[in-house]
């Protein structure tokens, strides 16, 4: 009997070790592209084109003789250098300008979308009625559409209001994108009624209930949703391509993809620079992302 118990314990331990190894492997695989980008950003441009040049062989036709045909994945640079960063940050103002383009597109979108979302989710979660739930369902449908479906509507509106080729054409529709409303409504609906009732007994107005109860209680959710929205728009590609013809105003996310085929020697450093805001956000908000949200319910909330 005792022996059997021990056996079970032992088996459990072995299983735990297997699980640990499995998760370790998976986690390393997940982290791998990030590390690769970072490591390669410290290589010289020559080293990078030697390693990856053959991927874009049409551009390196004449050099082909001394570039190996294989694409070499390398983690450790032959010589650690900040040359790439220097080229990106100091020698060429293009990248910083595009970075700024990304900032002035993404920050207003995130900020205003969150403001709209807080108001709307509050409206949806207080005094629900049939009309509101129909709107909510319509929002879910809208939320699920890929950008290409709303592309024509967006284009039509931009044309109508003479906003084509301006930032407003991208920012304004994005502010009203219902993704954050969907998430936040789910969180707000879980706030116990008793909190609200207690506040009401103390004579709190609806506005007070919103700012003093709902917003503080949902702080974690608000931060983590804002992060998701920010990351999504920080990487936007389609919108600028359709709504802005002048590449001068394109965000770095679009430009970054064009570097990949052009000046590949700088691509990794630009990638790392572009990663800085999201990494900073993670350092600040990862706990919110992990703990702030328990959405229950799929559609109705």
């Amino acid at each position, binding site marked *: 009997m005792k022996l059997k118990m021990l056996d079970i314990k032992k088996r459990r331990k072995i299983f735990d070790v297997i699980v640990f190894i499995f998760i370790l492997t998976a986690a390393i695989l*997940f982290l791998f592209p990030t590390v690769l980008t970072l490591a390669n950003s410290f290589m010289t441009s020559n080293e990078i084109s030697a390693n990856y040049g053959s991927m874009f062989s049409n551009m390196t036709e004449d050099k082909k003789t001394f570039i190996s045909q294989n694409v070499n994945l390398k983690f450790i640079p032959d010589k650690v250098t900040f040359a790439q960063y220097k080229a990106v940050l100091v020698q060429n103002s293009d990248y910083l300008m595009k970075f700024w383009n990304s900032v002035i597109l993404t920050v207003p979108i995130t900020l205003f979308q969150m403001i709209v979302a807080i108001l*709307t989710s509050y*409206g949806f979660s207080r005094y629900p009625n049939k009309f509101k739930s129909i709107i909510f369902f319509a929002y879910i449908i809208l939320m699920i559409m890929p*950008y290409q479906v709303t592309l*024509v*509507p967006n284009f039509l509106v931009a044309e109508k209001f003479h906003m084509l080729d301006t930032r407003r054409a991208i920012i304004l529709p994005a502010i009203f994108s219902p993704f954050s409303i969907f998430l936040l409504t789910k969180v707000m609906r879980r706030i116990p*009624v008793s909190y609200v009732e207690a506040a009401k007994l103390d004579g709190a107005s609806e506005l007070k209930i919103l700012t003093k109860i709902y917003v503080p209680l949902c702080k974690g959710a608000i931060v983590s949703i804002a992060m998701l929205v920010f990351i999504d728009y920080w990487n936007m*590609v389609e919108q600028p391509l359709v709504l802005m013809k002048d590449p001068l105003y394109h965000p770095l996310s679009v430009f970054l993809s064009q570097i990949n085929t052009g000046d590949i020697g700088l691509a990794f450093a630009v990638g790392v620079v572009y990663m800085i805001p999201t990494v900073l956000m993670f350092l600040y908000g990862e706990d919110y992302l*992990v703990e702030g949200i328990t959405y229950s*319910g799929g559609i109705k909330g």
Partner: protein
Amino acid sequence: MKNKTRNQCGRRGERVFSNICVMPSLIGVMIFFFIPFCIVIYYSLINNPVLKDFVGLQNYTKLFHNVAFTKAVKNTAFFSIVSVPLSVVLSLGLAMLLERKIPGKSIFRTFFLSPLMVPTASVVLVWQVLFHNHGTINQIIEHFGGNSIDWIKSPYGQVVIICMFLWKNLGYNMILFMSALCAIPRDIIEVADLEGASSWYKFVHIKLRYLSPTILFVLILSMINSFKIFREVYLLTGNYPQDKLYMLQHFMNNTFNSLDYQKLSAAAVLFALVMIVIMAILLIAENIFGKDVE
């Protein structure tokens, strides 16, 4: 619990305030999405923007005979049907594994979330290095004596984008499942343990029931993200990828670029209709399965 929230009765002023709160968003959605979408529906029913003759469903029937369109629909449907359930199952599995006592759990969590931080375009570059004809994966395959595969330019391209999708989205889905697992009342599990329930029984009859709202939620989120994979595919292969990677979004983008608004409008309307049907089914499913847990 729910009914209590629903039946809160307030004074009229408060009710009005909550309605006013919805207004900015409602007006915005009307202007930027709903009204223009009605115009899109109208566009899908006329022959061209100049003559504006009403042609009924002709644009739609033309669409069904369009080879590029049917190909795009097939590819998109295939990708979503494979990748969405896969991401739900895998992320739930990961979350349950991480539920065990494992050292360094929070570091692992960060690792799994790291794909969210990396800019899409940089990632695409890495994937290119991995899956290129002379890339890392093929080198490994050749090292072990296998035949190399041109991943991106062959039907295996679907495998590549499914990997990309999973890599990007598993982490966040896993987080959602982890917090849902934490929210399952401990006492129910303890009672089941005392009664000698097997772990399989506990999983199917207790955990899954409590998780069902989250599963639905992750399903919806994964669906949204599965349509966003176009970004990666586009950066990887451009406007005209090989057959198996030609997505509905490619079709719509290219029709947009060739200014064929009628075709594009009809496709957009069809897409919207399919989404409405799917969401309605999910809503009904939620009503059936989600009731007793709430």
